[in-house]
C-alpha cells in the first residue's frame, strides 16, 4: 500500500459547497476565464510536466526566443545574437526594455542562473533535456550572455524557447520544487500572477509595464474538474474559453453561434505504459500477452472518434510507420505467450509459483474519458484471467507515484508533443520522461541518429525504424490519438492559438 495523501478539509468541502457558486461568478469586462480539468499544483516552468502548466507558464514567463504567428523563431527576451565562426558559441544581447513583474530589469545573470539551475542535477528539472546541448553559459555584461555549445549548432535560437527565471527570486544557485516561488512566481511575461486561490483557480492580471501591453485585463484559470459542466459553463457565459472540448460536446458547441471552435491538435497519443522495472512486466512475453488481450478499437469506441496507433507518433506524422501491423486481440496467442513465460491458467486466473498475475492500472484523475477506458480494460482483461485494480491519482499522488517513484504496474496516460514530435525523452535510455524504464541500445542508436542527421529522409527513416522497434519491444501499448478542439466565446477577438502552447499570442487577444 502506498500512503494516501491528505487533501485539506477545505478542498474537500469545495465540491459540495462551491458548485452552485461556480456558475454565478461575474467577470470583469476584459477578463478571460478559461477552464482546465486540473489546476497546476505549482507554477514553476522548471518543473512543468503537464499541458495545463505549460499554458499558464506561457502567460507569465518569457524565453529568449519564441514563435511568431507563422511559427518562425523571433527574439523575445533576446534582442539580437551573434553566432561564432565555428558555431559553437553564441553571444546574445538582451533587450533593454524587459522587466520582471517586481520591476527589476531582466539581466544576463537571470539567463545564466536559469540555464545552470536547469542543468544542475540537484534541481531535478523535468526540462533538463532542453539545455543538455548547452555546455556553459556566462554573463559577459548585464545585457549579454555567452552560450557555449556541446556541438556546433546551425540555428541555436530554435532551441532557446525555454522560460527564463529571475535569479533574485531564489536563494543561492539552486531551484527546488518546494521554493516559495511555486505560488508567488515572478515572470517577465504579459501577465503576472495575482492570486493562487484556494479553489484551484489562478488569477493573472495584465502586467502594465510590459513592452507589449496585452489586450486582456485579466486571465483567470479555473479548475472545473467536473467535465460535464465545462461546456455548459461556456454556453451560459460563466467561462470564455475551454482549452479542450470533450468530443461529445463538439456538436452542440459548433451549433452555438456564441461560441467558436479552434482546432487545438497538439500531437497527442494515449498509451498504456508498463513498468519495465517491475516483475513480471520486465518479461516481453508477459507484455506481449497483455497487448494481445487488449482490443484497442473496443476501448476507443465509447470515448469518441480518433485513430488507433501502432507506435509513438500520430498517424499523420512523417515518422509514423504505416508498415507496422497492429496487434490484434488474440486470446489464444496471449495464452501461449503466458504459458511460455511460465504461467498456468487455474480457474479464473493465471498463476506462476502460486502467485496470480494481477495488474494495477494508474490513471490521472483529470484525464478525460479515462474512466471509460479503464472500466473497459478491466473487463477485457478480467475476462481473460487477469484481475485489474484501478487507481485514479490526483496531481500530487501522480507526481510522486509516476514521476518520482516509478511506482505503478501499468499507467493509462497521454503524451502531447509539439510539432517536432521529439520522443527522445520518452524512449531514450537517458530520457528524462522515460519512466517506463525502457532500455534498448537499438532505440538509443536510432534516436541519436534522428537527432544528429542532417538529411530529413534519413531522420524520417530512423524514426520510422524506431516506431517498429518500440512496437516490437512493447514498453507501451499504443492506443490512439483523439481529435481535439478548444472553444471560445465569440466575444474574445483576434484569437490565434499556438498549436502547442496555446497562449503564445494572447497579448493580441481582447474582449469585445
Amino acid at each position: 500500500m502506498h500512503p494516501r495523501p491528505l487533501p485539506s478539509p477545505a478542498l474537500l468541502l469545495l465540491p459540495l459547497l462551491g458548485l452552485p457558486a461556480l456558475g454565478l461568478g461575474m467577470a470583469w469586462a476584459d477578463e478571460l476565464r478559461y477552464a482546465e480539468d486540473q489546476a497546476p499544483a505549482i507554477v514553476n516552468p522548471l518543473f512543468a510536466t503537464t499541458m495545463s502548466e505549460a499554458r499558464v507558464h506561457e502567460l507569465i514567463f518569457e524565453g529568449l526566443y519564441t514563435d511568431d504567428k507563422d511559427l518562425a523563431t523571433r527574439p523575445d527576451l533576446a534582442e539580437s545574437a551573434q553566432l561564432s565562426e565555428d558555431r559553437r558559441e553564441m553571444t546574445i544581447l538582451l533587450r533593454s526594455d524587459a522587466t520582471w513583474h517586481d520591476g527589476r530589469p531582466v539581466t544576463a545573470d537571470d539567463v545564466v542562473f536559469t540555464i545552470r539551475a536547469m542543468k544542475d542535477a540537484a534541481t531535478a528539472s523535468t526540462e533538463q533535456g532542453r539545455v543538455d546541448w548547452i555546455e556553459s553559459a556566462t554573463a559577459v555584461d548585464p545585457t549579454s550572455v555567452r552560450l557555449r555549445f556541446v556541438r556546433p549548432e546551425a540555428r541555436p535560437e530554435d532551441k532557446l524557447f525555454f522560460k527564463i527565471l529571475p535569479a533574485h527570486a531564489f536563494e543561492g544557485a539552486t531551484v527546488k520544487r518546494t521554493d516559495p516561488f511555486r505560488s508567488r512566481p515572478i515572470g517577465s511575461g504579459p501577465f503576472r500572477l495575482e492570486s493562487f486561490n484556494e479553489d484551484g483557480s489562478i488569477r493573472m492580471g495584465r502586467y502594465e509595464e510590459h513592452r507589449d501591453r496585452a489586450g486582456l485585463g485579466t486571465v483567470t484559470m479555473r479548475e472545473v474538474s467536473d467535465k460535464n459542466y465545462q461546456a455548459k459553463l461556456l454556453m451560459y457565459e460563466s467561462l470564455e474559453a475551454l482549452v479542450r472540448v470533450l468530443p461529445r460536446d463538439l456538436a452542440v458547441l459548433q451549433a452555438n453561434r456564441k461560441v467558436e471552435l479552434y482546432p487545438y491538435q497538439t500531437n497527442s497519443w494515449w498509451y498504456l505504459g508498463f513498468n519495465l522495472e517491475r516483475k513480471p512486466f520486465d518479461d516481453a512475453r508477459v507484455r506481449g500477452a497483455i497487448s494481445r488481450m487488449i482490443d484497442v478499437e473496443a476501448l476507443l469506441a465509447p470515448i469518441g472518434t480518433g485513430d488507433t496507433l501502432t507506435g509513438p507518433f500520430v498517424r499523420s506524422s512523417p515518422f509514423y510507420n504505416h508498415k507496422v501491423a497492429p496487434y490484434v486481440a488474440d486470446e489464444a496467442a496471449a495464452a501461449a505467450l503466458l504459458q511460455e513465460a511460465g504461467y498456468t491458467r487455474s480457474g479464473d486466473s493465471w498463476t506462476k509459483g502460486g502467485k496470480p498475475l494481477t495488474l494495477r492500472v494508474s490513471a490521472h484523475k483529470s484525464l478525460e474519458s479515462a474512466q471509460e477506458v479503464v472500466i473497459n480494460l478491466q473487463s477485457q482483461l478480467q475476462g481473460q484471467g487477469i484481475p485489474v485494480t484501478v487507481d485514479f491519482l490526483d496531481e500530487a499522488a501522480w507526481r510522486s507515484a509516476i514521476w518520482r517513484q516509478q511506482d505503478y504496474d501499468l499507467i493509462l496516460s497521454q503524451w502531447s508533443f509539439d510539432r517536432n514530435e521529439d520522443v527522445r525523452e520518452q524512449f531514450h535510455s537517458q530520457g528524462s520522461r522515460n519512466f517506463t524504464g525502457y532500455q534498448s541500445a537499438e532505440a538509443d542508436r536510432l534516436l541519436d541518429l534522428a537527432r544528429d542527421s542532417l538529411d530529413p529522409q534519413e531522420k524520417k527513416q530512423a524514426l520510422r525504424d524506431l516506431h517498429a522497434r518500440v512496437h516490437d519491444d512493447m514498453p507501451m501499448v499504443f492506443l490512439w490519438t483523439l481529435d481535439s478542439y478548444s472553444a471560445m466565446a465569440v466575444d474574445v477577438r483576434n484569437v490565434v492559438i499556438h498549436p502547442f502552447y496555446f497562449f503564445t499570442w494572447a497579448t493580441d487577444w481582447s474582449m469585445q
Partner: protein
Amino acid sequence: MLGGLLWLAVGCGPAAEPTVADGAPAALDAGWISQVVTAPASFTALVDRTGREGWVLLHQGRLTQAARAFPDGPGRARIALEQAWLSQDLAWLAAEAWPRLADAWVARDPAIAQGPLPALAAASLLATGAPVDLSALPADDQAWLAAIPAATAGQAPPADLRGPDVDGCVAAAIAMLGGSADDLPPACAADAPLRLDTAGSFYDPLRFAARAAAAGRQAQRGSGSDGDSDPLALLLFGPWWAPADLDAARQDPAGLGAAPAMDGPTLRALALPEAGAEDLPQAARERVRALDRALDDWERAQAQAADPDGAALLTDLALVPQARGRVLLSWARQALAQDRPHQATAYLMLAHDVEQARELGPRNPPSLFALAALAALRTGRTREALDHLDPLLAEHPEVRALAETIGDLAVLEGMDRQGDSKEN
C-alpha cells in the same frame, strides 16, 4: 425565487440579433436550394435520371468513388469538374511545398542542389502557371522544364522529352498537361516515388496539375455533349448558389474548370462586410458571422415554406450548411490567392464539420482539407498541413506522395528545433 426563474428564462432565450438587408433573402430564393425545397420532384427526377449512387457519393465528398459510380452523361461531367477543382487545389499545394522543400534543404545541405530537387520544385511552380527563373538550373533540366509552360499554353511536348533525372511519369504528366493524354500510365498512378538515379525518394510534382487539366477538359467535353441539359446538374451540391452565379462563372476566361471563386451576384446582394486587405482572421470571422445571420433566418423560412418532402431534403441532406461550406471554401481560396492565409484558415475552420472531423462528408468536401493544408503551409504550420491531408488519403491515395513531400519539409524545418512534450 420566481424572479430568478424569470431571469433565467429570459437569459437563456434566443437573443435578438441584427439581420441583414431585407432584399438579401430574395436573392437567396433564386438558388438551387429553393428549387429543391419547393419542387423536390425535379430534384428526384434529375438524380434518378443521371445516376443516384453517384450523386449520393458526390454529396458525401467521395469523388473517386462517385466518378466510378456515375454513368456517362451530366453526372460524369459534373464529377470531372469537381475533380478538376480538387486537383487544382492540390497542385497549388504542391507548388507551395516543393519550392519550400528545395530551398530549406539546399540551405542546410548545398550538395542537394546538385540533385533533382531544384528542378522538381521549379516544375511544380511552372505547372500552376507561375513564372520561374530557370537560369540557375542545369541546361538539361531547363530543356524539359520549358516544356511545361509550353504544354499548358497548348503546345504538344516533344516526343523524346526526357531529362537526366526524370523518368516517364513526369513526361507523361507534361503530355497530360498539354492535352495529348487523359490519364497517366498505370505505373505512374500509384503513390510510387519517381525512379531517380540519385539518393532520396521524390515524387512526381506535376501529377495534380496534370490531373486538373485533364479533368477540366473532360468536364468541358461533358457539358458540351449534353449542353442543354438541366442547369440543376451543375448547381446541385455545387459551389454556385443560383443560375446567375453560374453564368457569371462561365464568363471567366479560365472556364468552369478553374477553381471557383464565389463572388457571384447572389453573395453580392447580401452586402456582407468585406474581410479587408490585411490578413486579420477576426475580420474573416465577422464576415462569416454576417453570412450565418442571413442564412440562419433564411433556412428557417425555407423550412416553413417548403413542401414536406422538400423540408425533409433540406434537413436530411444539410443543404444549407453544405452550401455555406462551399461559400466559405471559395472565400478561403480567394484569401489564399490574395495572400491572406490566416483569414483562409479562419474560413476553413468555420466551414469544417468537427463532428466528423477526420472524414470526408457533406460539409467536409475534399477541397476543404487540401486548402486547409495549403493555408497551414503558408502560416508556417507545416506539421499541421499533414493532419489536414490525412483524411484525404483513403479516397485519394495519390495524395500520399504530397504528404511525404510535406513530411520531408516538416522534418527539415524542425531539424534545429528541440521538441517539447507534456502530459495530457
